[in-house]
């Protein structure tokens, strides 16, 4: 049953792609390979180029984690097959929207994304998720062991320890929005992120009681109505 499902989706995709008029020698194939610079030279040059490529890959992955993954998961990048020009445009847009990236980090990130998720990167494997699991990902979970807290105390803790990145009103800055989100009702997941760190966020030492206070504060907040039209 399942394998049929996969064959079905895959078959239809390939067929439909064919019908849509896949370029036989079109733009995507004519694009110079971003990894081509590694091809030339003698063995030692090759080895050093490979070492550089590995370093660039590691740097690229770190930049992705820092700049991209606090707002969306990596699948959003991995399914793309974009040229360097398209990646430049996309990254520039995201930097304009406050992705955590310094000016000097834009080019390396674009280079990494173009080399990894360029037009010639090959087929992308779409994952599957059980319907129950998709529902459960958004559903509230018991707060235990995070205790019910004091909102006013939580406000103080939040301002002191979280607002530098997440903003005084918790609407995001270096960190992301913490107002009116399903994660606030999944205390254990939230605690794990806070204590482990994520993207640019370093692990935070915080007690269950302090976290309970901060949650009590955050849960009472709502986003303001949309601003007037420009």
């Amino acid at each position, binding site marked *: 049953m399942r394998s049929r499902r996969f064959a079905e989706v895959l078959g239809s*995709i390939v*067929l439909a792609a064919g019908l849509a008029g896949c370029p036989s020698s079109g733009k995507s194939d004519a694009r110079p390979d971003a990894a081509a610079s590694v091809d030339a030279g003698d063995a030692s040059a090759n080895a050093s180029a490979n070492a550089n490529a590995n370093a660039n890959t590691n740097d690229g992955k770190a930049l992705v984690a820092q700049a991209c993954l606090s707002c969306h*998961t990596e699948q959003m990048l991995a399914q793309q097959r974009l040229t360097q020009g398209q990646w430049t445009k996309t990254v520039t847009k995201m930097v304009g929207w406050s992705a955590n990236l310094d000016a000097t980090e834009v080019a390396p990130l674009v280079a990494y994304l173009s080399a990894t998720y360029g037009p010639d990167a090959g087929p*992308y494997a779409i994952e599957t998720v059980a319907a*129950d699991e998709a529902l459960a990902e958004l559903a509230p979970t018991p707060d235990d062991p995070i205790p019910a807290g004091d909102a006013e105390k939580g406000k103080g803790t939040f301002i002191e320890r979280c607002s530098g990145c997440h903003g005084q009103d918790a609407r995001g800055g270096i960190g992301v929005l913490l107002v009116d989100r*399903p994660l606030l009702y999944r205390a254990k997941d939230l605690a794990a992120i806070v204590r482990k760190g994520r993207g640019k966020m370093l692990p935070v030492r915080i007690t269950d009681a302090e976290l309970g206070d901060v949650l009590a504060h955050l849960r009472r907040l709502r986003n303001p109505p949309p601003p007037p*039209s420009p």
Partner: protein
Amino acid sequence: MQAAGALAVLRSGVAHGGELLLRHSGAPQQLATPLEYFDRAITPSRVFFVRSHFGPPGLDRTRKTAFDGMVTTPLTLDVDELRKSFPEVTVTALLQCAGNGRALHKPRVPGVQWVHGAMGQATFTGVRLRDVLTKAGLSKDAQYLRVSGADAPPKPTVPAFMRSLPIERAMDPTTLLAYRMNGEELTLAHGAPLRLVVPGWAGDHWVKWLVSVRAEKEEDGGFFMKTAYRMPTEPIEPGAAVPPEKMKPATTFPVKSTIARPDGEKRPVGPQEVTGLAFSGVAPIASVEVSIDDGKTWAKATLEGEAGVGRAQVFRYRFDKKEPGRVKAMARAKDKKGNLQPESPAWNPSGYFWNGWHAVEWEVGS
């Protein structure tokens, strides 16, 4: 060659209860419906595609929606108050993301790489938007409704998602403020407690987690109206840049058919059946034709269910395959305004509204 641009489905190692969605992104959830569910008029809610820009807000069934701006009596109502104050209506409509089929456009463009599954049909129950606007005393000078949800962007520098819906479309009797889907309370992923339903129009107009409906004179000037969700006003070369003045908002989705079955698995010699969904956001479906000889000849499929604008009908084509061999079937739909599903649709910079002929292949054995 095709493989380079195609998408494949990874076999998940995790045991599951049977129903699967295709996960284009974990967070925010971007989930597609597998093709096999398009063999029936109603897509089950559990496998109904999920898409939003920022992910849902917290679940709050008492959340209120403000109806204000150019009205004489601003109203702020929750679902209970809406139900008590206005007649309840149910519509059956196809919901499709503007980017459904984006992965099939060549050259590729950025965005969620949907293939066929960013669509589904459901019954939506709620009250008519026009009833609420009439009670609020909508000004005759209002031209647009600026609608937005509680799903705030991850950072204040990211533009908030919203749509400007032309008043004429807002006042259409099929435009609903819906709180139920397929007979059940809306789930959070589908917009609980309240979402817009705009049959025939791309999914971005069906704003979820609705909190603000503001009557205005002008179309909104922000990113989501002036940059995103726009289509070229005239045909362009694939890959070409389009000047902003030659772009307009993407609204109604074009005529399309999608084959659900056969699903690629070997079938015995004898009767064969091609089944799927056909719909148009512009007019009811007039016909669906199926070809099993690579487009040389086409035969009419039967249509089931009620016809309507933005409403999908099931099509079915039966034929006999007496000898073993490979079969390829293609479908194309026509709507009652004479629009014909193209073999290969025009490319556009955001990869919207792919509606080319869909083909499936399978092996017939003895």
